[in-house]
């Protein structure tokens, strides 16, 4: 039996970006907060130090900082008619573990969504007519607007010391920034990072073709920085060991660097590591979560932690799994389209583009920041006219290598062998002389892409694995073909010695090659309790003291990396909790 602990004001599940932000905001509002982290303590000074952190094999190939798939994973099938099998080793995506979560080993690409992204279905319907939205596409509006989010984007960017250049300052378009972005209330806290050869060549080529290149907004600090909390960041050294690694310079924003140094000493905050949350105890009558049951992974003992407020800030998968195993809300049924828990699972459609090789250039791929390079947004979202194109959405196109780590990052011209003498010669010749022009596309929700409980496979706690039923749909492939062609045009204008045929992902979703850790949906936000799990304040419709954070609340995924948008949502929700909910605990919205 679980040992019942003394009730606390708030319990926060997951100590990544959203969990650390909510813990900070709630303790500042005077609440006693317990933070639960299934993994171990991670301190940059101890765990991300040189020389050990510069170990590609350990961190990148052996997955040192990621979720342990021996204990928990998800199962996958491409359609309802198939039997799902467990993803036995991580590949396509790399969820985090330990203090800081994936926020400690991300690359740092930090975006704001476009204004139209928040009102996607209404916008597309109004502009192109309801028929323009493909059959089966279950995109929704967020229930919030860009204008609602703007102050919270600003807050998150300042927390993280984002390096970038504004393209729209209070409505004034600025050349050199992203002119398609919504109006910003202030410039980025840090100037853009340096550019490498790839970014510089891409920028010139894109400009010459009439596009609007801008530097990737990045959580790699271009200068030493002190955030409004008083936490300090170092300057990025362009080490090329960013994604999959912790930052030895404290230059990559992470919960470990930007939040925990001020949160951990706060007497109102208690961190409990090695606490693996098993389920939430739900009071169906009161429509509240009474407590959280967790297992201490060191002893196997169970504890029940009652709390006034419960913040679910785990990764997309565990947020959805905990709702399903705790019986909160109605599971989504693709046969009827009814129910909402598990609905609108989306991913990222990456891999459109081409690889360019230059006999007479030195691209030095190993000198790189994680979020780095030059980008155009001219073919993203609804930034271009979709009339007659046969698809909705789009993607951003970029160039600028983020690393030259030699096990994983090598490219050879078409026709080169994979091994042997000829391979060696080609590798020696081309390692330092290539880069990609890449298109990264949105993934719009489809009624057949969803999450539920696996009937066969179990995790280390004996719970069903989360089952992912997912495949790319026609809309993805059409965007892919479109972006590949645009990438090819830009690439060709740079006159490479050799370039690959422009490519895009054509087959079924493949769980093996890394694509992105941008899984979204499952506990989506919205204005209607029959089609969403949380309201516009991220409060669960079925449990008024439960707030769900993170990308699991996105109704669909844009091409942008999710951390910026989910950081803004975390601050927005924290504000609603501290300024509205605490005064009058109960539903903040009525259906």
């Amino acid at each position: 039996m679980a040992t019942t602990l003394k009730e606390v004001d708030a319990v926060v599940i997951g100590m990544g970006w959203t969990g650390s932000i909510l813990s900070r905001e709630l303790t500042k509002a005077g609440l006693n907060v317990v933070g639960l982290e299934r993994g171990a303590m991670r301190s940059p000074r101890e765990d991300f130090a040189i020389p050990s952190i510069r170990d590609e094999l350990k961190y990148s190939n052996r997955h040192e900082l990621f979720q342990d798939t021996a204990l928990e994973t998800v199962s996958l099938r491409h359609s309802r008619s198939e039997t799902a099998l467990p993803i036995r080793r991580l590949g396509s995506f790399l969820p985090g573990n330990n203090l800081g979560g994936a926020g400690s080993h991300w690359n740092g690409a930090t975006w704001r969504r476009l204004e139209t992204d928040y009102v996607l279905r209404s916008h597309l319907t109004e502009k192109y007519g309801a028929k323009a939205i493909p059959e089966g596409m279950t995109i929704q509006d967020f229930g919030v607007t860009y204008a609602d989010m703007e102050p919270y984007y600003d807050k998150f960017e300042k927390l993280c010391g984002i390096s970038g250049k504004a393209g729209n300052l209070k409505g004034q378009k600025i050349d050199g920034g992203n002119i398609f972005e919504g109006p910003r209330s202030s410039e980025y806290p840090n100037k853009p990072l340096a550019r490498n050869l790839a970014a510089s060549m891409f920028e010139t080529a894109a400009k010459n073709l009439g596009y609007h290149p801008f530097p990737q907004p990045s959580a790699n600090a271009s200068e030493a920085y002190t955030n409004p909390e008083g936490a300090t960041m170092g300057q990025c050294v362009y080490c090329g060991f960013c994604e999959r690694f912790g930052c030895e310079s404290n230059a990559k924003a992470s919960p470990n660097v930007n939040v925990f140094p001020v949160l951990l000493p706060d007497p109102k905050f208690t961190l409990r590591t090695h606490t693996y949350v098993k389920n939430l105890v739900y009071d169906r009558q009161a429509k509240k979560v009474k407590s959280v049951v967790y297992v201490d992974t060191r002893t196997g003992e169970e504890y029940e932690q009652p709390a006034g407020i419960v913040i679910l800030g785990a990764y997309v998968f565990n947020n959805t799994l905990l709702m399903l195993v705790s019986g909160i809300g109605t599971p989504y049924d693709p046969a009827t389209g009814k129910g909402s828990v598990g609905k609108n699972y989306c991913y990222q459609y990456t891999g459109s583009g081409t690889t360019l090789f230059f006999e007479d250039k030195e691209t030095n791929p190993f000198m790189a920041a994680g979020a780095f390079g030059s980008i155009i947004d001219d073919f993203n979202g609804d930034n271009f006219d979709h009339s007659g194109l046969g698809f909705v959405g789009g993607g951003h196109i970029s160039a600028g290598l983020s690393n030259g780590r030699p096990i994983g990052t090598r490219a050879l011209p078409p026709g080169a062998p994979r091994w042997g003498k000829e391979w060696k010669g080609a590798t020696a010749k081309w390692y330092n002389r290539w880069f990609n022009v890449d298109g990264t596309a949105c993934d719009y929700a489809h009624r057949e892409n969803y999450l539920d409980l696996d009937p066969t496979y179990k995790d280390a706690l004996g719970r069903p694995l989360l089952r992912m039923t997912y495949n790319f749909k026609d809309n993805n492939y059409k965007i892919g073909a479109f972006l590949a062609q645009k990438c090819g045009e830009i690439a060709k204008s740079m006159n490479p010695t050799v370039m690959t045929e422009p490519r895009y992902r054509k087959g079924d979703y493949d769980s093996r090659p890394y694509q992105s850790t941008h899984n979204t949906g499952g506990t989506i936000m919205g204005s209607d309790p029959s089609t969403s799990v949380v309201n516009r304040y991220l409060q669960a419709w079925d449990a008024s003291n439960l707030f769900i954070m993170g990308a699991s609340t996105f109704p669909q995924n844009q091409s942008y990396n999710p951390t910026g948008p989910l950081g803004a949502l975390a601050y927005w929700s924290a504000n609603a909790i501290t300024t509205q909910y605490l005064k009058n605990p109960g539903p903040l919205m009525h259906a």
Partner: protein
Amino acid sequence: MADVKIPRRDFLKSAGAASAAGAAMATGIAACSPETKTAASPAPEPEIRLTLTQTEWAFISAAVDTLIPADELTPSGTDVGLVVFIDRQLAGAYGNGARLYRQGPFLPAKAELGYQLSLTPREFFRAGIAATNEWTTKTYGKDFDRLSEAEREEALKVLESGKPEFAGFSSAMFFDQLLTITMEGFFADPIYGGNKDKVAWKMIGFPGLPASYREEIKTYFNKKYDKPPQSIADFS
């Protein structure tokens, strides 16, 4: 085709220096420099195998020398420590299934669903090596490591194409795993036993550590960065 005999003890000799590093790891001095060891002990030392059998050691030696042959760019796969690397990897946490979800049922699957066997990497290599030797014996009349250089190259190409029928998994999948672990050893930091003397890093111009380029990102814009590479061991 001439029957070129490659006695196993020749492999043992060439693997001797790398084995010294293996011995050092076994006594807990993981980051010693293999070069100094070689200089200090000119006589070939007996190979120290953590998990590979003698037959498997010979197979892996022949395989890595075919995948990474000696030429003007680098010494051969065995001479840069790849057999030692693979032996250590398969003997350790990775080889024994760390971070691998191992609950059944184990069912045949489309490739896109990823690895679905019940075997750990160690067990998978055991099965793959045995199956390959069985196939080369059927096709060429002998184990893979006894084939001539040209035959080994040909055999690996056939394996890569997935033509030979193996029980339980495809021969192409075994080849892919073999190639993957070989490349890991070739390009990983030398502390793991491969990439001896940072030969692979020198070959491509990867500088290794400390990887601090605050100024260099500007001063080496479109310029070759020709500093000699440094490994984790150089900073330990």
